[in-house]
Structure formats: C-alpha cells, structure tokens
C-alpha cells in the first residue's frame, strides 16, 4: 500500500515561505509527477514527504498515518537522487544491499533480493564494479535498484534523469515508467521537464511559487488548464495568449490558443500576420508569426508546409479550442 495524503503542508526557511499550504491526495499505485519552474518548491515538497526536511505546518499521511514526526528510514519510502548519490566506496552489490543490511535482513535473503533487482535492471554483469566504473545510465540504474530492493510503499524520484544525455533520457524514461507499472508501487517524480511530466504521469501536480496550481491527468491539464500559468507551462510550443479586443470578443480578459489549434491559411478570416521564422522539422512545421498588435504568435502544422519567412498569412483559432481567462488569470468555464 502507498496512499499518500498531504494536508495543508507548509514549509518555511526562516521568513521565506517555500511551500504555502499544499493539499494533495495520491492514490496507491499511481505515478504522480511534480512539475514546475526552478524554485517553485517541487523538490522541497518531495523532501518533506521523504522526511529529509521537517514540515513547518500541516500533516503528511502515508496509508492514513501521520508521519511528520517519523524519521525518513521509518516512512517506508525510497528515493532516487538527481546526483544518483551512490556510495562511491561500495560495489554495485554493496550499494543495492545497503538498505537491506541496515534493516538487518539475513545474508542469504539480501543476496537473493539484490540479484533479483540486478536482473530486473540488467545490472548482473556489473555487480562487483564500483560506481566510478559505470556509465551515467548504469549508475542511474543502480540508484533505482537501491530504491526497488527495499520494496517501499512509494518511490520518490528527484529529477533522476536530468544528468543523462537526451537519447538516454528518453530510454530511461520508458524504463522507469515500465518498472513502475510492473511493480505497481506509488511513485512521486519531480521534474522541470514538462515533456517528461506529460509522458510519464498518471497525474501531474503543477507547482508555482510554492503553491499547487493544478492537479490532474496530463490531458486534463492540456485541455482544461485552471489558469494562465498552467496553460503556459503545459504544452510545447507554449500556448499563445491574446489580450484586448480580440479576447473581449470571446468575453474574456485573455484568451489562449495552442499553436496546434491555429489554422494556417493564405487569406480569409482571422488574424493576419507575416512569418518571422519558419522551422521545418519534416514531421511538423513551426511558424513564428508577427501578428501586429497581437504580438508574436506560434503556429504548428503537422507535416510539411510550403511557407517561408516573409510570407503573409492568416491564422484563425479553432473556436472549440479557445481557452478563456478572466482578469486574474483564472480559467472561465462556459
């Protein structure tokens, strides 16, 4: 079991409020990603759950039991660090076995579990090597092995893939997701990469300046962002925002249209503009369009489009895909 509930969790360092009252319900077996810009408090929130930091207020419940006064080791969680944090003087075997050794398990059982974990992660040939003799991806696997071997109630991942190169990151992303589904253990994963968040999560928590802006499935966040921040943060390229008369026409202070929901035409009704930059990726075409008073708009077209910088075009938003926001930036629902 790994049900985690946060009730008005707060954290301050001196006069600085890092977490300003977080409420969250993470159901057993789900994969939840904390995402947000740097300094939004996502790592702090994870460390509060881990017990590496003490809460200033509120409670953290694991399977219904308040753990704010329970030391990290007794919370039944395990953590994968951004820096891997392997023990440099121990072999891969020693690293994976350390937690079990601390728990006082018999040697034979430790060996059996370590070997099973190593087999799951393709680490068997490296069991006797030291961390410095491994590649980045292998080190990451050892860190994950150390986490799974203890059969925790939940895994905590603190930006575990950010030190890997792009190709390896995609591969490890798949491996982590697959492993989590296979083990059916609750996972909380911190990242600043919204693509990682969208692809891995069952549910995403978007954090900004110590506040939870929205908690929902990736598609909920994409289709019904609660406010301007979430709308701008989720989705790549970023959502276009338009103010003024064009927004007032839809009865909103600001409207948002995702680049993929702008129809591109040579002429007709809509927002006229001139292409400033055209990016041809083959699979997609991205147009950065100078639309006069509306500012620069980004449009995305799936497939190739025979347009280049300097061309005059007209962009028309898909009326069913327009996001409307009031003057405080909160979404207006019709």
């Amino acid at each position, binding site marked *: 079991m790994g049900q985690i509930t946060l009730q008005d969790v707060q954290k301050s360092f001196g006069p600085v409020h890092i977490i300003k009252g977080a409420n969250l319900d993470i159901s057993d077996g789900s994969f939840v990603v904390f995402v947000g810009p740097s300094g939004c408090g996502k790592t702090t929130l994870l460390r509060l759950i881990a017990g590496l930091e003490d809460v200033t207020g509120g409670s953290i419940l694991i399977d219904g039991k308040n753990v704010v006064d329970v030391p990290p080791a007794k919370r039944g969680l395990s953590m994968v660090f951004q820096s891997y944090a392997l023990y440099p003087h121990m072999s891969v075997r020693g690293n994976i076995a*350390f937690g079990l050794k601390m728990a006082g398990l018999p040697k034979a059982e430790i060996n059996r579990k370590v070997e099973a974990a190593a087999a799951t992660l393709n680490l068997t040939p490296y069991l006797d090597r030291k961390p410095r003799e491994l590649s980045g991806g292998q080190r990451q696997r050892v860190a994950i092995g150390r986490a799974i071997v203890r059969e925790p109630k939940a895994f905590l991942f603190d930006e575990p893939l950010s030190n890997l190169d792009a190709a390896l990151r995609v591969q490890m992303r798949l491996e982590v997701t697959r492993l989590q589904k296979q083990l059916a253990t609750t996972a909380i994963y911190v990242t600043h990469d919204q693509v990682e968040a969208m692809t891995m999560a069952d549910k995403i928590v978007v954090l900004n300046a110590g506040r939870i802006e929205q908690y929902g499935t990736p598609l909920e966040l994409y289709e019904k962002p609660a406010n301007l921040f979430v709308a701008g943060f989720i989705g790549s390229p970023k959502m276009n925002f338009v103010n003024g008369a064009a927004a007032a026409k839809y009865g909103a202070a600001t409207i948002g249209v995702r680049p993929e929901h702008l129809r591109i035409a040579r002429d007709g009704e809509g927002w006229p503009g001139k292409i400033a930059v055209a990016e041809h990726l083959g699979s997609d075409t991205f147009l950065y369009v100078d639309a006069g008073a509306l500012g620069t708009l980004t449009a995305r077209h799936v497939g190739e489009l025979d347009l280049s910088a300097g061309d005059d075009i007209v962009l028309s938003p898909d009326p069913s895909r327009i996001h409307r926001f009031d003057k405080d930036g909160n979404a207006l629902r019709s």
Partner: protein
Amino acid sequence: MARMATNRRVAISTVGAWLAGFLIFFPILWMVLTSFKTELEAFAIPPSFLFFHWTTENYATVQERSDYIHHALNSIIIAGGSTLIALLIAIPAAWSMAFSPTKRTKDVLLWMLSTKMMPPVGVLVPIYLIWRDFGLLDSLTGLVIILCLGNLPIVIWMLFTYFKEIPKDILEAARMDGATIGRELIYVLTPMAIPGLASTLLLNLILAWNEAFWTLNLSTLNAAPLTVFIASYSSPEGLFWAKLSAASTLAIAPILVLGWFSQRQLVRGLTFGAVK
C-alpha cells in the same frame, strides 16, 4: 627564440627550487653530519663539511647514557594515543558542523581556532596545578590528554573541510536507506573520508611527536618522550653538540621515515579542497 627563452626560464627556476630546497633541508643535513663528528670537530671553526673523522661513538654514548627505547616508546604512545582520541572526538564534531550547521557554527570553529593563537605558556601555571592535583604530572595519561586537547582544534578544522567536500545527497541516501546517525558515520562517511582522515592522522602524529612545550614541562622521566631525551643533552654542564645531534637524529628518524613514505598523502591532504 621563444622556446629557448622558456627553456632558460625553466632552467633558472629549477636551479632556484633546488637551491631553496637545499637551504631548507640544510639544518637537518648539518645535524646528521654533526652527529658523526667528534665533539672537538663539532666545534671546529672553520667547520669541515664532509672530510672529517667519521665516528658512531656519539650514538653509542647516547644509548648508554639515556634509554632511547624508553623515550621512543613514550613518544609513540603519546603521539599515537593523543591522535586517536582526538580523531574519535573530532569525527562526530566535524560531522555535526559540516552536515547540520547552525547560525553559530562558523563562530564555534573560529573560537576553537583562536585557542591555538594563545601562547601555551599563558596557561602553563593553571594547567600544571590542575595536573599536579589530579596526579597527572609525569604520566602518559596526562600528556596524552594535554596533546589531544591542544591539537583538537586543528583536527576538527581539517576534518570539517574534508567532510564539507562530501556530497550531502549521499548521506541523505544512507538516511533513506535506514542508516542511523552512528551507522551513517561508520559505513558511509568515514570510508569516504579515508584520504582526509589519513592526512589528518599523519599531520597530527607529526605535530604531537614534535610537541616540546607541554612534554618538557609536564614530564621528567617516567613519561618523558623523545623531546625530553633531546633536551637532556643541552645541560648546564656544557653543550655537547655532537651528542645532541646524535640524539636529535635518533629522535626525528621515525617521524622522518613516516613522513617520507606518506608525503603524497600529506601533500594531498594539505591541498585537499583547494582545487577540485
């Protein structure tokens, strides 16, 4: 042209470095040479550098007149004991200051260091009286305690700098893995800090071995280490340069050998943290 100029510069600095090295080493060399002279030649003006009558009789006399082994053993016990106890106290102290610092940690560190700025003679009388009342005068225990206390600030400072270099994440990982603070110290921190611990241990051994002020003042015979053994050769009856040199050579020999074999460790230890 440019290369020739560089070569010449390298040659000049090489000669300069050797010269400086020789100058620094010269007193020790002179001491060793003097120890093989007769008392008469040791006083001779102008002194003879290498062409004198080589003799080992000073060493024989020294061993005969005073028990070298007794003093050397005391030195080993005092230097070793005070170093080990200092490390046992300093490891947890440095750990707490490096990994859970408070607002006052820097002040505490500076305050500890400031005790080393005070001349020891300033507290000689109170320490002497305390040691007398506790029956610690001329005892190994007494010397181990005073040298341990005297070097503790430096040991804590050195370990603090080493521990600072160890990523906090690794200790947190150990904590998540269920290690108590004690086990975290034993299984994770100490093995990782071995290079730092080794150089701290070596430096402290050397400091304690050479310490003369407290050993001379708080011991006479039973607990007297090699410093007292050397000092006994500069007596009111007159200076015996050759015998004094022989005694000094014997006294520094063990630590010199130790230093020679561990010089890489020492240099690494002293420059640790300066460059990553």
